Every structure is written in structure tokens, then in C-alpha cells.
């Protein structure tokens, strides 16, 4: 690790310690800590695992077992914007697969993940909770319903700055 890298890492550790200490609810656990960190940093860097272990008095192994279990956690930085597309059975029936197809086309990817320029992230979602408005997508947790392949592709292009 270069000096610049280690300086960045210690800054990140400091930020994570602040997030961990700022948790307001009475019950603080490994899971609540990881959720708190990802809410702010948008992913869990190695430093988050180590700091959470220290903070909660757990082992790194225990923290990893939790972090790797819940599918909302990610370990690399996401794009600037994250687009969730629901593929649950309700949205599936009203055309979610075509919406997914269209978004993947614009993002130039074949699975979940970042576009080649790493500007945007596609995330599959099992249910965004607005089934009556399906197919549903969400930009950074803000929901947009009644999508068509065309409307979703347009939104995807705007997110990539290609409108």
C-alpha cells in the first residue's frame, strides 16, 4: 500500500467510526452497523468490515458472514446512480423482463452491475412494494411505475447522460 493509499484508508476508517458511533437506535448490532455504513458510503469497503468487528466486539469472520448473506450489501463502489428493476412475479407478468432487457441494452451489460464507464449501476430487485404500478423501477430508492421498454430505456439513457 502506498502512503497516499494508506492515508485514504485511515480517513475512510475515521469516517466509518463516526458513522458507527452515530447510530441512534438503542439496539446496535453487526447488521445495523453494516446497514448504517452502506447508507452513507453506498458499499462496504474492507475497512467497514474491520471497523464493524472492532466496534461490535465481533470477529472479522462473523462480520463477513453477515455482510455476505444479505443481498443488499455490496463490496465495490456503485455507479453515481443505481437503477433497481423489479423482476418479482407480479412485475414479471406485466413485462418486467422486457424492461430489464431494455435497460441492459442501454447500460451495455448482460447481468447486474455497473456500466462499462462505471457511471450507473443496475440492480435486480425481488419486490419494490408497488405491485399495483408494475412494472416498477427505482432510481436511488425513488420508485417509478408503469414502465415500458421505451420509457425505461429513456430513463436509463438519461442516467448515463446520453439523453
Amino acid at each position: 500500500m502506498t502512503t497516499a493509499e494508506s492515508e485514504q484508508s485511515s480517513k475512510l476508517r475515521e469516517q466509518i467510526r463516526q458513522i458507527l458511533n452515530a447510530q441512534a437506535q438503542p439496539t446496535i448490532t453487526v447488521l445495523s452497523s453494516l446497514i448504517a455504513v452502506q447508507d452513507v458510503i453506498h458499499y462496504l469497503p474492507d475497512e467497514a468490515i474491520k471497523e464493524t468487528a472492532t466496534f461490535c466486539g465481533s470477529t472479522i469472520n462473523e462480520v463477513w458472514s453477515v455482510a455476505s448473506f444479505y443481498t443488499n450489501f455490496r463490496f465495490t463502489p456503485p455507479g453515481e446512480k443505481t437503477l433497481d428493476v423489479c423482476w418479482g412475479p407480479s412485475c414479471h407478468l406485466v413485462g418486467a423482463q422486457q424492461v430489464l432487457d431494455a435497460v441492459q441494452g442501454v447500460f451495455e451489460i448482460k447481468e447486474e452491475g455497473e456500466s462499462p464507464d462505471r457511471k450507473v449501476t443496475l440492480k435486480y430487485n425481488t419486490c419494490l412494494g408497488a405491485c399495483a404500478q408494475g412494472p416498477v423501477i427505482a432510481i436511488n430508492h425513488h420508485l417509478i411505475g408503469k414502465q415500458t421498454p421505451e420509457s425505461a430505456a429513456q430513463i436509463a439513457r438519461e442516467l448515463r447522460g446520453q439523453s
Partner: protein
Amino acid sequence: MPTQFEELQARANKRWAELTEGDSAWIRVGGGTSGQAAGTDAVFDAAKSAVESTGVNANVSMVSAMGLMYLEPQLDILMPNGSRVFYGNVESHEVADIVEHHVQNGEPLTERAFAYSGGDGSGFGNLPELKSMPTVALQQRIATRNFGDTDPHDLLQYVANGGYTALNRALTEMTPEEIVDEVKAAGLRGRGGAAFPAGVKWSFLAPSKAPVKYVLCNCEEGDPGAFNDKGIIENDPHTLIEGLIINGYATRSTHGYVFIRTGHELPIEAARKAIADAYEAGLLGKNILGTDFSFEMEVSLTGDSYVAGEETALMEAIEGKRSTPRFKPPFPAAAGLWQKPTNINNVKTISYVPEIVRNGSEWFKGIGTETTSGTAIVCLSGHITYPGMYEVPMGMTIREVLEKVGGGVSEGERIKVLQAGGPLNGLLGEEAFDTMIDFDAMSAAGASIGSGGIIVGNETVNVVDLLRSLIAFNQFESCGKCFPCRLGNTHMLEILDRMCQNKAKSADLALLERVGTSMKAGSLCGHGQLGFNPIASALKYFGDEIKSCLAGEIAPGGVYGDGTMILPTRTRP
């Protein structure tokens, strides 16, 4: 001297009178997650700026959703004369026009409205009265009684509409035993799917003299097609909080948790605000409403995991671990969260409790069927004319709900298939549509009303394709603890993949059944035990279609009959 609660009520009534009886109009915009997806935020902003620019005397609030999701974004205007006119599918650019005509000139834009209520009785031309609309008239609202009327973020509006009177009554006039007996006598059964009598469950916890006891409220609600738990929390969180405090008192518990999945921002925000406000008003914390009863409550967030909704897995998640199910016994009432005596109830179950305490068990018992009292909170989505969330009395048939409340499918089409009660329950074909909505009748038909979600499919739906999406969901969401579930779901998905690609063999049916049997026998929780349900019910109602697919024919229709469905490949390590 007025009691603490009477003082709270006086403040609440004053607030409500300001909103509904003064010289101001009240513009209420329906909120909620579904509303957000339909574009409510822009409509709300437009309403605020229209009031500002016209200078009319009006309050603007984001209130709870009405549940009529096919009409979202939706707003209504209450005029000082008591008339209320409802506008649906409102676009933000129309709002200024509506406010100008309706509030400024006193002439509602009836051609843009869908219903009215109140007023001097003369009505508004051809506009129907709200309570005459089938989507409203056939409902009987108990847990959702405040929907469309009150601001979920305002404790006083809840109190002004009768809120917390049940808690006050419970704490000052009833013993914990009397409440448990009342809930038992009401015949309230668990709405999470298992249908276990709630009062009986409470009576397991009540006798324990342990110094710390927990009551948990489960709003994990990962079922696609179900949005009523989150719907109650985001639209009327105090109903749930009041119910959970009563649950705590009746079982002599010390702590309550409301358990929600991270990322669902509106329900989380609503629950947190409501709990904070309840503390502030003396409804939570030490010596609630001046009585001897003390009770703490907080929101616990889980990560994305469907199995976290299973009761013992839920306790693991609150403890901050991987949400995998525990062995039973010990049962939660003996050793639950942090090994302390614990009760777990679904959001809907708890949300009925205030009205049961307020109106008595006889009243609740009088609604619904012999074996299932009360209502079902049904979520309709998919190929249905009026998608939404509707609270109907138990005992209505599925067909009535679909056709009378949901408006059926478009003319010339036919409903072919339903997915009811979440992805671990069955598909239903037309023969089952005359089944009564009631726990026992539904379970005899091979389905469950459990979560209340009904996904509707018309004739274009390919049953094998729908099955694959359900099994893909179950495979993705298996927690991995029990290998029959982890591997069984993967194996079933592989077979369904082959079926969709026209590569299946007739022997695959026997293989599916064998896998299903192992899953049922060898899994700790419902995720594996019930995992074969979708296929079993599809064989019952759509056996010919499945068999012709196994014989090498692909049924017409379906989303991706050629087998190129996009699905996650990730499983839990």
C-alpha cells in the same frame, strides 16, 4: 382535572377542527409507496405552489393513500361547506387548474373528478358518491379505517379520529388477562399466513414472570404481490403502534420491535416518526399515560432476505446475524429474541387489535366467517382493471373480489391464473375462483390468503413461465441453511428452465415430485417445506398445460417462451 389522555385528545380535536371546520379548504394528496411510483410527489409540489400563487385559503397535506391505486396520483379537496371532491390520475400540470376552479371559484372540475362525499346533499351532477363506488362500497375498513383521510405523520390526526382510546381503555379499565381473553374471543387469527389464533399465542407469553420480554411485529413482507403490511405502516403507523403497545401490556412485555427491510424508505420513515411522536406524547416509555405500565419500542432494520420473515430467522436478524431459521423447540414464547420470552405477530394482526379493544370481541366476531373473523386486506396486481389494496370482509369469494372490486379484466379477456398468498403458495385456476376468502376454505383449495397478495394473470400468461419466475424467486431467496431447500430449489429451477426451452422429458415430472418431497421432509422452515406448492398447485389446475410442455410442446403466450429469462445467478455463500 383532565387525565393525560384527555389533554392529548383536546389538543387533537382542536387540530382536527382547524383542518376540517375552519374557513380554509383542505387539499389532501394521497401518498404512499405506490403513489410515489405513480408520481404523487410532483402532484403534491404542484398543489403547494398552486395555493401559494393563487393565494387561496387552503391547507395542503400529503395524507395516507386511499388504496385505490388505479386512480393514483390522487388528490381531494374538502371545502369549508363540508363537500369533498376526489380527483384521480392527476397530472402535475393540471393541479393549478383544479385549485383555481375548485378552491378559488368554488366550481369543482367535475369532469376530472371521480367521486364526491359530504356537502349539502345535492351532489355534483353525474359524479358518483364515494361510498357508492364498488371499489369502496364492498370494503369494510378496520385496519385501514383512516386511509385517505389522515396524515400518517401527524399523531394528533390519528388521536382525533379515535386513536389511542383503545390503549387508554386497556391500561385504565382492563387487566392483561381480560385483553388476552378479548382477543381470543374475537377469533383473531394471524394474518402472516399461518392463521394461528393470536389470543392463544399471546397466552403462551403472558404467564412468564421474566423481567425482559419481547413482542415483535413482522413487516418483512418480501412477498411479491403483497404490499399491505408496508401499506399499513406508511399510511397509518399509529394503528400498528397502538396495537403493539396493547400487545405488550396484555403479555406483560417490556420491549417491542417493528421489523422492516432496509430500503423501503416510506414505511421506515413513518414508523420511526410515529414511535418518536408516541414517546413525546407519553404513549411509550416509562409510566404510559400516567399508569404503572412501561414499554419501549424501536424499529429494527433487516437486510435483503426473504427468509428473514420467518419468525426465528427474524429474531436472528434483530440480533444482527444471518437470518436463518432456528430449530424449534424451544419455541419463541419460551426462548426467543436473545433467548428471552418472545411473541411475534404480523402487522395486519396487530393492526386489528385497537379496534377489537375499542368495539369489543362480539363486534369483530360478527364480521367475516364462522372460522375466520374479521377482514382480509387484499392486494390486487397484474392483469386486473383496478389494481389496489382493499379491505373486504372474510367470506367474499375470490370471484367477487376480482370482478366486483377489481373490475375484472378487459372486455373479451378472461382471467386464467391467480397467484395468491405469496410465492410459497399456489397458483389457482378458474375452478377455484368461487372459493371463499377464509383461511380454511383457501387452504382446502391449495392456496392461502396469508399475505393477501393476489397476482392476476390473463390468457396470455404461460403457466410454466410464471412458475419459473416463482421458483426463481424461491431459489434466489433460499437462505441456504438446509440443503434440501438450497439444492432442491436450484434443481427445480433447472428443470423449469429445460421445460421453457422445450428440452424437458416426461420423466422430469417424477423428478420434480421427488425433489419436492425431500424439500418438504428436510427443511427447517416454510421456505423449503412449502417450496413445492407452486408446482403442486399448477399440476392440479393446469396439469394438461404442464404435461404438454413436458411432452415437448410449448404453450402459446408467456413472457419469454424461448427460455431467455433474465434472472439473478447469485446465491448466498
